[in-house]
Protein backbone atom coordinates (compact mmCIF):
# COMPACT_ATOMS: atom_id res chain seq x y z
CA UNK A 1 0.00 0.00 0.00
CA UNK A 2 2.65 2.50 1.03
CA UNK A 3 4.54 2.77 -2.25
CA UNK A 4 1.30 3.50 -4.03
CA UNK A 5 0.20 6.31 -1.75
CA UNK A 6 0.98 9.96 -1.89
CA UNK A 7 4.08 10.43 0.16
CA UNK A 8 5.01 14.00 0.99
CA UNK A 9 1.51 15.03 2.01
CA UNK A 10 1.19 11.92 4.13
CA UNK A 11 4.06 13.05 6.35
CA UNK A 12 2.49 16.49 6.75
CA UNK A 13 -0.89 15.09 7.69
CA UNK A 14 0.61 12.54 10.05
CA UNK A 15 2.05 15.38 12.10
CA UNK A 16 -1.33 17.09 12.45
CA UNK A 17 -3.31 13.95 13.16
CA UNK A 18 -1.25 12.70 16.09
CA UNK A 19 -3.89 13.66 18.72
CA UNK A 20 -7.07 12.90 16.78
CA UNK A 21 -8.96 9.91 18.32
CA UNK A 22 -10.41 8.72 15.02
CA UNK A 23 -6.94 8.76 13.49
CA UNK A 24 -5.62 6.74 16.42
CA UNK A 25 -8.33 4.16 15.91
CA UNK A 26 -7.53 3.90 12.21
CA UNK A 27 -3.78 4.15 12.69
CA UNK A 28 -2.18 7.58 12.30
CA UNK A 29 -0.25 6.64 9.18
CA UNK A 30 -3.33 5.20 7.54
CA UNK A 31 -5.51 8.19 8.40
CA UNK A 32 -2.86 10.55 7.05
CA UNK A 33 -2.53 8.48 3.89
CA UNK A 34 -6.31 8.48 3.53
CA UNK A 35 -6.48 12.28 3.80
CA UNK A 36 -3.59 12.67 1.37
CA UNK A 37 -5.29 10.29 -1.04
CA UNK A 38 -8.50 12.36 -0.88
CA UNK A 39 -6.57 15.56 -1.63
CA UNK A 40 -4.73 13.94 -4.53
CA UNK A 41 -7.88 12.43 -6.00
CA UNK A 42 -9.68 15.77 -5.80
CA UNK A 43 -6.78 17.51 -7.57
CA UNK A 44 -6.55 14.79 -10.20
CA UNK A 45 -10.31 14.94 -10.65
CA UNK A 46 -9.89 18.48 -11.89
CA UNK A 47 -7.24 17.27 -14.35
CA UNK A 48 -9.58 14.49 -15.40
CA UNK A 49 -12.69 16.57 -16.00
CA UNK A 50 -11.55 20.01 -17.11
CA UNK A 51 -9.21 19.02 -19.98
CA UNK A 52 -11.85 16.56 -21.21
CA UNK A 53 -14.34 19.42 -21.46
CA UNK A 54 -11.80 21.62 -23.22
CA UNK A 55 -10.89 18.86 -25.68
CA UNK A 56 -14.55 18.23 -26.56
CA UNK A 57 -14.88 21.93 -27.39
CA UNK A 58 -11.57 21.80 -29.28
CA UNK A 59 -12.72 18.78 -31.25
CA UNK A 60 -15.78 20.70 -32.45
CA UNK A 61 -13.80 23.81 -33.32
CA UNK A 62 -11.02 21.92 -35.12
CA UNK A 63 -13.42 19.69 -37.02
CA UNK A 64 -15.37 22.78 -38.02
CA UNK A 65 -12.26 24.52 -39.30
CA UNK A 66 -11.07 21.43 -41.18
CA UNK A 67 -14.48 21.11 -42.85
CA UNK A 68 -14.56 24.84 -43.66
CA UNK A 69 -17.20 25.60 -41.01
CA UNK A 70 -17.02 27.78 -37.91
CA UNK A 71 -17.95 25.24 -35.24
CA UNK A 72 -19.70 26.53 -32.10
CA UNK A 73 -19.67 30.33 -32.01
CA UNK A 74 -22.28 31.67 -29.60
CA UNK A 75 -22.37 29.74 -26.32
CA UNK A 76 -20.49 31.72 -23.67
CA UNK A 77 -20.10 34.87 -25.73
CA UNK A 78 -17.34 34.30 -28.25
CA UNK A 79 -15.80 31.14 -29.75
CA UNK A 80 -18.47 28.97 -28.11
CA UNK A 81 -16.10 28.27 -25.21
CA UNK A 82 -18.96 27.20 -22.91
CA UNK A 83 -20.25 24.64 -25.39
CA UNK A 84 -19.06 21.60 -23.40
CA UNK A 85 -20.80 22.85 -20.26
CA UNK A 86 -24.02 23.49 -22.20
CA UNK A 87 -23.77 19.99 -23.64
CA UNK A 88 -23.31 18.60 -20.17
CA UNK A 89 -26.42 20.34 -18.86
CA UNK A 90 -28.40 19.14 -21.86
CA UNK A 91 -27.22 15.56 -21.35
CA UNK A 92 -28.12 15.64 -17.64
CA UNK A 93 -31.73 16.46 -18.55
CA UNK A 94 -32.12 13.53 -20.93
CA UNK A 95 -34.01 10.43 -19.91
CA UNK A 96 -31.91 7.60 -18.52
CA UNK A 97 -33.08 4.76 -20.73
CA UNK A 98 -32.45 1.06 -20.28
CA UNK A 99 -33.60 -1.15 -23.15
CA UNK A 100 -36.03 -3.96 -22.43
CA UNK A 101 -33.65 -6.67 -23.62
CA UNK A 102 -30.68 -5.33 -21.71
CA UNK A 103 -29.10 -6.83 -18.61
CA UNK A 104 -30.11 -3.82 -16.52
CA UNK A 105 -27.55 -3.94 -13.71
CA UNK A 106 -24.48 -4.40 -15.91
CA UNK A 107 -25.83 -2.00 -18.55
CA UNK A 108 -26.00 0.74 -15.92
CA UNK A 109 -22.66 -0.21 -14.40
CA UNK A 110 -20.56 -0.28 -17.60
CA UNK A 111 -19.96 3.49 -17.94
CA UNK A 112 -18.57 3.63 -14.41
CA UNK A 113 -16.11 0.82 -15.14
CA UNK A 114 -14.80 2.81 -18.12
CA UNK A 115 -14.53 6.06 -16.17
CA UNK A 116 -12.82 4.44 -13.16
CA UNK A 117 -10.27 2.68 -15.37
CA UNK A 118 -9.50 5.88 -17.23
CA UNK A 119 -9.25 7.93 -14.03
CA UNK A 120 -6.96 5.43 -12.32
CA UNK A 121 -4.42 5.96 -15.10
CA UNK A 122 -4.11 9.62 -14.06
CA UNK A 123 -2.64 8.55 -10.71
CA UNK A 124 0.69 7.85 -12.40
CA UNK A 125 1.05 10.89 -14.69
CA UNK A 126 4.07 13.02 -13.66
CA UNK A 127 2.71 16.55 -13.96
CA UNK A 128 5.90 18.03 -12.57
CA UNK A 129 8.97 16.89 -10.66
CA UNK A 130 7.40 15.02 -7.75
CA UNK A 131 3.90 16.29 -8.56
CA UNK A 132 2.55 12.87 -9.21
CA UNK A 133 -0.44 11.13 -7.68
CA UNK A 134 1.48 8.02 -6.82
CA UNK A 135 5.25 7.87 -7.12
CA UNK A 136 5.23 4.10 -7.49
CA UNK A 137 8.16 2.21 -8.92
CA UNK A 138 5.75 0.13 -11.01
CA UNK A 139 4.18 3.37 -12.32
CA UNK A 140 4.02 2.83 -16.08
CA UNK A 141 3.22 -0.88 -15.79
CA UNK A 142 0.30 -0.20 -13.48
CA UNK A 143 -0.85 2.68 -15.67
CA UNK A 144 -0.97 0.50 -18.79
CA UNK A 145 -2.74 -2.21 -16.78
CA UNK A 146 -5.38 0.31 -15.65
CA UNK A 147 -5.87 1.65 -19.17
CA UNK A 148 -6.32 -1.89 -20.47
CA UNK A 149 -9.23 -2.39 -18.06
CA UNK A 150 -11.23 0.16 -20.02
CA UNK A 151 -12.04 -2.50 -22.60
CA UNK A 152 -13.98 -4.50 -20.01
CA UNK A 153 -16.44 -1.64 -19.59
CA UNK A 154 -16.83 -1.36 -23.35
CA UNK A 155 -17.46 -5.10 -23.73
CA UNK A 156 -19.98 -5.05 -20.89
CA UNK A 157 -21.72 -2.05 -22.46
CA UNK A 158 -21.89 -3.70 -25.85
CA UNK A 159 -22.92 -7.15 -24.68
CA UNK A 160 -25.48 -6.05 -22.09
CA UNK A 161 -27.25 -3.58 -24.36
CA UNK A 162 -29.22 -6.40 -25.93
CA UNK A 163 -28.64 -4.88 -29.36
CA UNK A 164 -26.79 -6.32 -32.30
CA UNK A 165 -25.16 -3.02 -33.26
CA UNK A 166 -23.75 -2.70 -29.78
CA UNK A 167 -22.52 -6.31 -29.74
CA UNK A 168 -20.69 -5.88 -33.04
CA UNK A 169 -19.11 -2.65 -31.88
CA UNK A 170 -17.96 -4.18 -28.62
CA UNK A 171 -16.44 -7.22 -30.30
CA UNK A 172 -14.54 -5.08 -32.78
CA UNK A 173 -13.35 -2.88 -29.96
CA UNK A 174 -12.17 -5.86 -27.91
CA UNK A 175 -10.27 -7.38 -30.84
CA UNK A 176 -8.67 -4.05 -31.62
CA UNK A 177 -7.70 -3.18 -28.05
CA UNK A 178 -6.11 -6.57 -27.38
CA UNK A 179 -4.01 -6.45 -30.53
CA UNK A 180 -2.87 -2.85 -30.20
CA UNK A 181 -1.89 -3.19 -26.56
CA UNK A 182 1.07 -5.37 -27.56
CA UNK A 183 3.01 -2.94 -29.81
CA UNK A 184 2.00 -0.07 -27.53
CA UNK A 185 3.50 -1.75 -24.48
CA UNK A 186 6.66 -2.80 -26.37
CA UNK A 187 7.20 0.77 -27.60
CA UNK A 188 6.61 2.15 -24.12
CA UNK A 189 9.26 -0.31 -22.90
CA UNK A 190 11.99 1.25 -25.04
CA UNK A 191 12.47 4.45 -22.97
CA UNK A 192 12.00 2.31 -19.88
CA UNK A 193 14.93 0.08 -20.87
CA UNK A 194 17.00 3.18 -21.60
CA UNK A 195 16.20 4.72 -18.24
CA UNK A 196 16.30 1.55 -16.19
CA UNK A 197 13.16 2.40 -14.22
CA UNK A 198 9.40 2.13 -14.64
CA UNK A 199 8.83 5.21 -12.52
CA UNK A 200 7.63 7.93 -14.92
CA UNK A 201 8.93 10.68 -12.64
CA UNK A 202 12.43 9.24 -12.89
CA UNK A 203 12.18 8.74 -16.65
CA UNK A 204 11.39 12.45 -17.11
CA UNK A 205 14.06 13.48 -14.61
CA UNK A 206 16.64 11.63 -16.70
CA UNK A 207 15.61 13.64 -19.77
CA UNK A 208 15.71 17.06 -18.15
CA UNK A 209 18.78 19.16 -17.67
CA UNK A 210 20.48 22.57 -17.85
CA UNK A 211 22.71 24.33 -20.36
CA UNK A 212 26.32 23.33 -20.15
CA UNK A 213 28.60 26.28 -21.03
CA UNK A 214 31.34 23.95 -22.29
CA UNK A 215 29.07 22.22 -24.74
CA UNK A 216 26.94 24.42 -26.99
CA UNK A 217 24.16 21.83 -27.31
CA UNK A 218 20.71 22.70 -25.97
CA UNK A 219 19.42 20.39 -23.21
CA UNK A 220 16.38 19.28 -25.21
CA UNK A 221 18.67 16.91 -27.11
CA UNK A 222 18.36 14.81 -23.95
CA UNK A 223 14.74 14.03 -24.81
CA UNK A 224 14.18 10.49 -25.90
CA UNK A 225 12.64 11.57 -29.18
CA UNK A 226 16.12 12.64 -30.34
CA UNK A 227 17.44 9.18 -29.64
CA UNK A 228 17.78 7.32 -32.96
CA UNK A 229 15.73 4.31 -31.82
CA UNK A 230 13.30 5.86 -29.36
CA UNK A 231 12.54 8.64 -31.82
CA UNK A 232 11.08 6.09 -34.24
CA UNK A 233 9.38 4.26 -31.39
CA UNK A 234 7.49 7.46 -30.52
CA UNK A 235 5.62 7.37 -33.81
CA UNK A 236 4.76 3.68 -33.48
CA UNK A 237 3.64 4.29 -29.89
CA UNK A 238 1.48 7.22 -30.89
CA UNK A 239 -0.25 5.22 -33.64
CA UNK A 240 -1.04 2.44 -31.18
CA UNK A 241 -2.16 4.95 -28.55
CA UNK A 242 -4.57 6.51 -31.03
CA UNK A 243 -5.96 3.05 -31.74
CA UNK A 244 -6.23 2.18 -28.07
CA UNK A 245 -8.36 5.28 -27.49
CA UNK A 246 -10.57 4.06 -30.35
CA UNK A 247 -10.02 7.31 -32.22
CA UNK A 248 -10.34 7.63 -35.99
CA UNK A 249 -8.96 6.16 -38.22
CA UNK A 250 -9.32 3.28 -35.75
CA UNK A 251 -12.84 4.07 -34.47
CA UNK A 252 -14.33 0.79 -35.65
CA UNK A 253 -16.15 0.34 -32.35
CA UNK A 254 -18.41 3.32 -33.05
CA UNK A 255 -18.29 3.51 -36.86
CA UNK A 256 -21.40 5.67 -37.25
CA UNK A 257 -21.87 4.86 -40.93
CA UNK A 258 -21.96 1.10 -40.35
CA UNK A 259 -23.01 0.41 -36.77
CA UNK A 260 -25.27 3.38 -35.85
CA UNK A 261 -23.05 4.19 -32.85
CA UNK A 262 -21.52 0.82 -31.98
CA UNK A 263 -21.46 0.07 -28.28
CA UNK A 264 -22.96 3.51 -27.54
CA UNK A 265 -26.15 2.80 -29.52
CA UNK A 266 -28.45 2.17 -26.57
CA UNK A 267 -26.97 4.75 -24.20
CA UNK A 268 -28.41 8.17 -23.59
CA UNK A 269 -28.05 11.07 -21.23
CA UNK A 270 -25.49 11.09 -18.47
CA UNK A 271 -24.23 7.53 -19.00
CA UNK A 272 -23.48 8.32 -22.63
CA UNK A 273 -21.57 11.43 -21.59
CA UNK A 274 -19.54 9.38 -19.11
CA UNK A 275 -18.21 7.31 -22.02
CA UNK A 276 -17.24 10.50 -23.78
CA UNK A 277 -15.57 11.95 -20.71
CA UNK A 278 -13.54 8.76 -20.35
CA UNK A 279 -12.56 8.78 -24.01
CA UNK A 280 -11.19 12.31 -23.94
CA UNK A 281 -9.56 11.77 -20.57
CA UNK A 282 -7.77 8.66 -21.77
CA UNK A 283 -6.64 10.55 -24.87
CA UNK A 284 -4.99 12.98 -22.45
CA UNK A 285 -3.59 10.09 -20.42
CA UNK A 286 -1.92 8.28 -23.34
CA UNK A 287 -0.64 11.62 -24.67
CA UNK A 288 0.73 12.32 -21.20
CA UNK A 289 2.57 8.99 -21.27
CA UNK A 290 3.98 9.90 -24.69
CA UNK A 291 5.06 13.32 -23.41
CA UNK A 292 6.71 11.82 -20.35
CA UNK A 293 8.42 8.95 -22.13
CA UNK A 294 9.57 10.61 -25.32
CA UNK A 295 9.14 14.40 -25.17
CA UNK A 296 10.82 15.22 -21.90
CA UNK A 297 7.69 15.60 -19.77
CA UNK A 298 7.80 18.81 -17.75
CA UNK A 299 11.23 19.81 -19.10
CA UNK A 300 11.10 22.92 -21.29
CA UNK A 301 14.23 21.98 -23.23
CA UNK A 302 16.22 25.16 -22.54
CA UNK A 303 17.00 24.69 -18.89
CA UNK A 304 14.48 27.27 -17.61
CA UNK A 305 12.61 24.93 -15.25
CA UNK A 306 15.87 23.40 -14.13
CA UNK A 307 17.40 26.83 -13.55
CA UNK A 308 14.40 28.09 -11.58
CA UNK A 309 14.53 25.07 -9.31
CA UNK A 310 18.28 25.33 -8.84
CA UNK A 311 18.01 28.97 -7.82
CA UNK A 312 15.44 28.28 -5.12
CA UNK A 313 12.16 29.03 -6.91
CA UNK A 314 11.10 25.42 -6.71
CA UNK A 315 7.34 26.05 -6.63
CA UNK A 316 7.44 28.43 -9.60
CA UNK A 317 9.63 26.01 -11.51
CA UNK A 318 7.29 23.12 -10.78
CA UNK A 319 4.21 25.14 -11.77
CA UNK A 320 5.89 26.15 -15.01
CA UNK A 321 6.83 22.51 -15.55
CA UNK A 322 3.24 21.42 -15.03
CA UNK A 323 2.10 23.96 -17.61
CA UNK A 324 4.70 22.66 -20.06
CA UNK A 325 3.68 19.06 -19.45
CA UNK A 326 -0.01 19.87 -20.00
CA UNK A 327 0.90 21.84 -23.13
CA UNK A 328 2.86 18.93 -24.58
CA UNK A 329 0.10 16.44 -23.82
CA UNK A 330 -2.55 18.81 -25.21
CA UNK A 331 -0.60 19.22 -28.43
CA UNK A 332 -0.59 15.46 -28.87
CA UNK A 333 -4.35 15.41 -28.20
CA UNK A 334 -4.71 18.11 -30.84
CA UNK A 335 -2.76 15.87 -33.21
CA UNK A 336 -5.20 13.05 -32.53
CA UNK A 337 -8.12 15.36 -33.29
CA UNK A 338 -6.42 16.56 -36.47
CA UNK A 339 -5.83 12.97 -37.62
CA UNK A 340 -9.44 12.07 -36.88
CA UNK A 341 -10.87 14.72 -39.16
CA UNK A 342 -8.31 14.19 -41.91
CA UNK A 343 -8.02 10.44 -42.43
CA UNK A 344 -10.86 8.12 -43.48
CA UNK A 345 -11.76 5.15 -41.28
CA UNK A 346 -10.04 1.90 -42.23
CA UNK A 347 -11.75 -1.48 -42.41
CA UNK A 348 -11.54 -3.99 -39.56
CA UNK A 349 -9.27 -6.34 -41.54
CA UNK A 350 -7.00 -3.40 -42.35
CA UNK A 351 -6.93 -2.50 -38.67
CA UNK A 352 -5.77 -6.01 -37.81
CA UNK A 353 -3.24 -6.11 -40.68
CA UNK A 354 -1.74 -2.78 -39.64
CA UNK A 355 -1.22 -4.07 -36.14
CA UNK A 356 -0.17 -7.67 -36.62
CA UNK A 357 1.87 -7.37 -39.82
CA UNK A 358 3.42 -3.94 -39.46
CA UNK A 359 3.30 -2.44 -35.98
CA UNK A 360 4.27 -5.52 -33.94
CA UNK A 361 7.32 -6.40 -36.10
CA UNK A 362 8.35 -2.74 -36.08
CA UNK A 363 8.00 -2.53 -32.31
CA UNK A 364 9.97 -5.74 -31.76
CA UNK A 365 12.78 -4.64 -34.09
CA UNK A 366 12.97 -1.26 -32.38
CA UNK A 367 13.08 -2.91 -28.99
CA UNK A 368 16.00 -5.13 -30.03
CA UNK A 369 17.76 -2.11 -31.51
CA UNK A 370 17.23 -0.12 -28.33
CA UNK A 371 18.78 -2.90 -26.27
CA UNK A 372 21.74 -3.36 -28.61
CA UNK A 373 22.46 0.33 -29.26
CA UNK A 374 24.12 1.18 -25.93
CA UNK A 375 26.15 -2.03 -26.12
CA UNK A 376 27.41 -1.11 -29.59
CA UNK A 377 28.23 2.41 -28.42
CA UNK A 378 30.02 1.14 -25.37
CA UNK A 379 32.12 -1.44 -27.21
CA UNK A 380 32.82 0.45 -30.45
CA UNK A 381 32.98 4.09 -29.42
CA UNK A 382 34.15 3.73 -25.82
CA UNK A 383 31.28 5.99 -24.91
CA UNK A 384 28.76 4.47 -22.53
CA UNK A 385 26.49 7.53 -22.79
CA UNK A 386 23.22 6.72 -24.49
CA UNK A 387 22.43 10.20 -25.77
CA UNK A 388 24.92 12.46 -27.52
CA UNK A 389 23.46 15.59 -25.98
CA UNK A 390 24.12 14.79 -22.35
CA UNK A 391 25.29 18.35 -21.89
CA UNK A 392 24.29 18.79 -18.30
CA UNK A 393 25.64 15.54 -17.01
CA UNK A 394 22.22 15.03 -15.44
CA UNK A 395 22.40 11.30 -16.06
CA UNK A 396 25.74 11.07 -14.33
CA UNK A 397 24.53 13.15 -11.39
CA UNK A 398 21.32 11.24 -10.88
CA UNK A 399 22.99 7.85 -11.14
CA UNK A 400 25.52 8.95 -8.57
CA UNK A 401 22.65 9.97 -6.32
CA UNK A 402 21.13 6.56 -6.72
CA UNK A 403 24.30 4.72 -5.92
CA UNK A 404 23.25 4.79 -2.28
CA UNK A 405 20.87 2.11 -3.43
CA UNK A 406 23.94 -0.15 -3.86
CA UNK A 407 22.64 -1.14 -7.28
CA UNK A 408 23.50 1.18 -10.20
CA UNK A 409 20.32 2.65 -11.59
CA UNK A 410 21.05 3.24 -15.25
CA UNK A 411 20.45 -0.01 -17.14
CA UNK A 412 22.06 -2.17 -14.50
CA UNK A 413 22.01 -5.31 -16.58
CA UNK A 414 23.82 -3.69 -19.50
CA UNK A 415 26.53 -2.34 -17.24
CA UNK A 416 27.22 -5.75 -15.84
CA UNK A 417 27.33 -7.33 -19.28
CA UNK A 418 29.78 -4.75 -20.57
CA UNK A 419 32.06 -5.33 -17.61
CA UNK A 420 31.92 -9.04 -18.23
CA UNK A 421 32.92 -8.64 -21.87
CA UNK A 422 36.06 -6.70 -21.19
Amino acid at each position, binding site marked *: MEPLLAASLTDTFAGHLADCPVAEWLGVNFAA*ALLAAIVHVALLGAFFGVPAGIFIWLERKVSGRIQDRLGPTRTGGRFGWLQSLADGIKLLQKEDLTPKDADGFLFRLAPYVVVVASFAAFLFLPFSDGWIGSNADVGLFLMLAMLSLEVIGVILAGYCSGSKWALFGAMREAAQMISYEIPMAICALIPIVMAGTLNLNEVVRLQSGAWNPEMPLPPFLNWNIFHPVAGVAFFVYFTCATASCKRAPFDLAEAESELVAGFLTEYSGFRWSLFFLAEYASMFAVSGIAAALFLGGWDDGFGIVHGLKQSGYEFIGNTLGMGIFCLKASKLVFLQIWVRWTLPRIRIDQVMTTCLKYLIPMACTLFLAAVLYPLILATAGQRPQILPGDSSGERGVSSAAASADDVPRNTPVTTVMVEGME
Partner: protein
Amino acid sequence: MTGEQILFGLFALLACGGAISVVLCQSVVRMAFSLIVSLASVSALFFLLNADFVGATQLMVYVGGTLVLLIFGVMLTASSPFVRIRTSPAEGFLAGGIGILFLALVAFTIGAVDWDATTAKLPAPATVATAGHNSAESGNTMRPLALALAGLRPDAPGGSGYLLPFEIVSMHLLVVLVGAAYIARTKRNARSAAQSRAG
Protein backbone atom coordinates in the same frame (compact mmCIF):
# COMPACT_ATOMS: atom_id res chain seq x y z
CA MET B 1 -8.37 -2.50 14.29
CA THR B 2 -6.45 -0.28 11.92
CA GLY B 3 -7.51 1.16 8.61
CA GLU B 4 -5.38 -1.30 6.69
CA GLN B 5 -7.17 -4.17 8.38
CA ILE B 6 -10.57 -2.70 7.52
CA LEU B 7 -9.55 -2.32 3.89
CA PHE B 8 -8.09 -5.81 3.85
CA GLY B 9 -11.31 -7.27 5.23
CA LEU B 10 -13.36 -5.33 2.70
CA PHE B 11 -11.35 -6.57 -0.26
CA ALA B 12 -11.19 -10.09 1.11
CA LEU B 13 -14.99 -10.08 1.39
CA LEU B 14 -15.26 -8.75 -2.15
CA ALA B 15 -12.90 -11.45 -3.45
CA CYS B 16 -14.90 -14.21 -1.74
CA GLY B 17 -18.24 -12.66 -2.69
CA GLY B 18 -17.18 -12.39 -6.31
CA ALA B 19 -16.06 -16.01 -6.33
CA ILE B 20 -19.35 -17.20 -4.81
CA SER B 21 -21.30 -15.09 -7.26
CA VAL B 22 -19.41 -16.69 -10.18
CA VAL B 23 -20.84 -20.01 -9.04
CA LEU B 24 -24.34 -18.79 -8.26
CA CYS B 25 -25.00 -16.53 -11.27
CA GLN B 26 -26.64 -18.15 -14.25
CA SER B 27 -26.00 -15.50 -16.84
CA VAL B 28 -22.61 -15.77 -18.56
CA VAL B 29 -21.96 -12.01 -18.55
CA ARG B 30 -22.65 -11.72 -14.85
CA MET B 31 -20.33 -14.63 -14.16
CA ALA B 32 -17.60 -12.90 -16.11
CA PHE B 33 -18.19 -9.66 -14.24
CA SER B 34 -18.15 -11.42 -10.87
CA LEU B 35 -14.82 -12.95 -11.85
CA ILE B 36 -13.50 -9.44 -12.61
CA VAL B 37 -14.58 -8.28 -9.15
CA SER B 38 -12.96 -11.26 -7.49
CA LEU B 39 -9.65 -11.03 -9.38
CA ALA B 40 -9.41 -7.24 -9.00
CA SER B 41 -10.01 -7.57 -5.25
CA VAL B 42 -7.16 -10.09 -5.06
CA SER B 43 -4.90 -7.55 -6.75
CA ALA B 44 -6.02 -4.95 -4.19
CA LEU B 45 -5.03 -7.43 -1.46
CA PHE B 46 -1.58 -7.68 -3.04
CA PHE B 47 -1.25 -3.89 -2.96
CA LEU B 48 -2.25 -3.86 0.70
CA LEU B 49 0.43 -6.45 1.42
CA ASN B 50 3.19 -4.27 -0.11
CA ALA B 51 3.52 -6.48 -3.19
CA ASP B 52 3.02 -3.76 -5.78
CA PHE B 53 4.50 -5.60 -8.76
CA VAL B 54 2.50 -8.76 -8.16
CA GLY B 55 -0.64 -6.66 -7.78
CA ALA B 56 -0.01 -4.83 -11.04
CA THR B 57 0.70 -8.13 -12.77
CA GLN B 58 -2.51 -9.57 -11.41
CA LEU B 59 -4.40 -6.62 -12.92
CA MET B 60 -2.59 -6.81 -16.25
CA VAL B 61 -2.52 -10.58 -16.76
CA TYR B 62 -5.58 -11.94 -15.00
CA VAL B 63 -8.08 -9.11 -14.99
CA GLY B 64 -7.05 -7.60 -18.32
CA GLY B 65 -5.86 -10.47 -20.46
CA THR B 66 -7.44 -13.68 -19.25
CA LEU B 67 -10.77 -12.13 -18.70
CA VAL B 68 -11.04 -10.62 -22.13
CA LEU B 69 -10.13 -14.00 -23.60
CA LEU B 70 -12.73 -15.65 -21.38
CA ILE B 71 -15.36 -13.16 -22.47
CA PHE B 72 -14.48 -13.88 -26.08
CA GLY B 73 -14.49 -17.62 -25.65
CA VAL B 74 -17.65 -17.96 -23.63
CA MET B 75 -19.75 -15.24 -25.19
CA LEU B 76 -18.96 -15.98 -28.81
CA THR B 77 -19.51 -19.71 -28.42
CA ALA B 78 -22.90 -19.20 -26.77
CA SER B 79 -25.73 -19.75 -29.24
CA SER B 80 -27.77 -16.72 -28.17
CA PRO B 81 -27.11 -13.66 -26.04
CA PHE B 82 -27.91 -13.95 -22.32
CA VAL B 83 -27.54 -17.70 -22.44
CA ARG B 84 -28.22 -19.25 -19.06
CA ILE B 85 -26.16 -22.06 -17.67
CA ARG B 86 -28.19 -24.35 -15.42
CA THR B 87 -26.60 -27.03 -13.33
CA SER B 88 -28.32 -30.31 -12.60
CA PRO B 89 -28.80 -31.30 -8.92
CA ALA B 90 -26.29 -34.13 -9.29
CA GLU B 91 -23.63 -31.71 -10.52
CA GLY B 92 -24.39 -29.36 -7.67
CA PHE B 93 -24.10 -32.19 -5.15
CA LEU B 94 -20.78 -33.36 -6.60
CA ALA B 95 -19.34 -29.86 -6.81
CA GLY B 96 -20.50 -29.10 -3.26
CA GLY B 97 -18.80 -32.23 -1.99
CA ILE B 98 -15.53 -31.37 -3.69
CA GLY B 99 -15.82 -27.80 -2.41
CA ILE B 100 -16.29 -28.94 1.18
CA LEU B 101 -13.33 -31.31 0.89
CA PHE B 102 -11.19 -28.45 -0.46
CA LEU B 103 -12.38 -26.17 2.34
CA ALA B 104 -11.38 -28.82 4.86
CA LEU B 105 -7.94 -29.03 3.23
CA VAL B 106 -7.49 -25.26 3.38
CA ALA B 107 -8.68 -25.09 6.99
CA PHE B 108 -6.31 -27.93 7.93
CA THR B 109 -3.40 -26.14 6.23
CA ILE B 110 -4.16 -22.85 7.94
CA GLY B 111 -4.26 -24.61 11.28
CA ALA B 112 -0.97 -26.40 10.63
CA VAL B 113 1.13 -23.35 9.69
CA ASP B 114 3.14 -21.59 12.39
CA TRP B 115 2.20 -18.04 11.43
CA ASP B 116 4.62 -16.33 13.80
CA ALA B 117 7.68 -18.05 12.38
CA THR B 118 8.34 -15.42 9.71
CA THR B 119 7.18 -12.28 11.51
CA ALA B 120 10.72 -11.09 12.04
CA LYS B 121 11.46 -11.39 8.32
CA LEU B 122 8.38 -9.49 7.15
CA PRO B 123 8.88 -5.98 5.78
CA ALA B 124 8.40 -3.21 8.29
CA PRO B 125 5.14 -1.41 7.52
CA ALA B 126 4.48 2.26 6.95
CA THR B 127 7.86 3.57 5.90
CA VAL B 128 6.84 6.31 3.52
CA ALA B 129 9.55 7.72 1.29
CA THR B 130 9.20 10.87 -0.77
CA ALA B 131 11.19 9.90 -3.82
CA GLY B 132 11.12 6.79 -5.95
CA HIS B 133 13.66 3.99 -5.63
CA ASN B 134 12.68 2.92 -2.18
CA SER B 135 13.99 -0.27 -0.72
CA ALA B 136 12.18 -3.53 -1.23
CA GLU B 137 11.23 -3.57 2.43
CA SER B 138 9.01 -0.52 2.01
CA GLY B 139 7.17 -2.22 -0.80
CA ASN B 140 8.96 -1.22 -3.98
CA THR B 141 9.69 -4.73 -5.11
CA MET B 142 10.26 -3.80 -8.75
CA ARG B 143 14.05 -3.51 -8.84
CA PRO B 144 14.99 -6.59 -6.77
CA LEU B 145 12.49 -8.66 -8.77
CA ALA B 146 13.82 -7.48 -12.11
CA LEU B 147 17.43 -8.09 -11.07
CA ALA B 148 16.59 -11.54 -9.76
CA LEU B 149 14.87 -12.47 -13.02
CA ALA B 150 17.89 -11.20 -14.96
CA GLY B 151 20.09 -13.52 -12.93
CA LEU B 152 21.38 -11.14 -10.25
CA ARG B 153 20.65 -11.30 -6.56
CA PRO B 154 23.18 -9.08 -4.80
CA ASP B 155 21.73 -9.83 -1.37
CA ALA B 156 21.61 -13.62 -1.71
CA PRO B 157 24.52 -15.96 -0.99
CA GLY B 158 26.15 -16.85 -4.30
CA GLY B 159 24.33 -14.00 -5.99
CA SER B 160 22.71 -16.10 -8.69
CA GLY B 161 19.13 -15.34 -9.66
CA TYR B 162 16.42 -17.00 -11.67
CA LEU B 163 17.54 -16.44 -15.26
CA LEU B 164 17.34 -20.11 -16.26
CA PRO B 165 13.80 -20.75 -14.90
CA PHE B 166 12.70 -17.48 -16.51
CA GLU B 167 14.06 -18.55 -19.89
CA ILE B 168 12.57 -22.04 -19.58
CA VAL B 169 9.14 -20.63 -18.77
CA SER B 170 9.27 -18.17 -21.67
CA MET B 171 10.37 -20.89 -24.11
CA HIS B 172 7.58 -23.09 -22.78
CA LEU B 173 5.04 -20.33 -23.41
CA LEU B 174 6.40 -19.86 -26.93
CA VAL B 175 6.02 -23.58 -27.64
CA VAL B 176 2.46 -23.48 -26.30
CA LEU B 177 1.64 -20.52 -28.56
CA VAL B 178 3.07 -22.17 -31.67
CA GLY B 179 1.31 -25.42 -30.81
CA ALA B 180 -2.03 -23.68 -30.29
CA ALA B 181 -1.71 -21.88 -33.61
CA TYR B 182 -0.75 -25.13 -35.34
CA ILE B 183 -3.69 -27.09 -33.90
CA ALA B 184 -6.20 -24.33 -34.74
CA ARG B 185 -4.92 -24.09 -38.28
CA THR B 186 -4.98 -27.84 -39.00
CA LYS B 187 -8.60 -28.05 -37.97
CA ARG B 188 -9.62 -25.23 -40.21
CA ASN B 189 -7.68 -26.69 -43.15
CA ALA B 190 -9.28 -30.12 -42.64
CA ARG B 191 -12.74 -28.58 -42.49
CA SER B 192 -12.24 -26.48 -45.61
CA ALA B 193 -10.84 -29.53 -47.42
CA ALA B 194 -13.92 -31.53 -46.42
CA GLN B 195 -16.17 -28.72 -47.60
CA SER B 196 -14.44 -28.50 -50.95
CA ARG B 197 -14.75 -32.29 -51.34
CA ALA B 198 -18.47 -32.14 -50.54
CA GLY B 199 -18.92 -29.25 -52.94
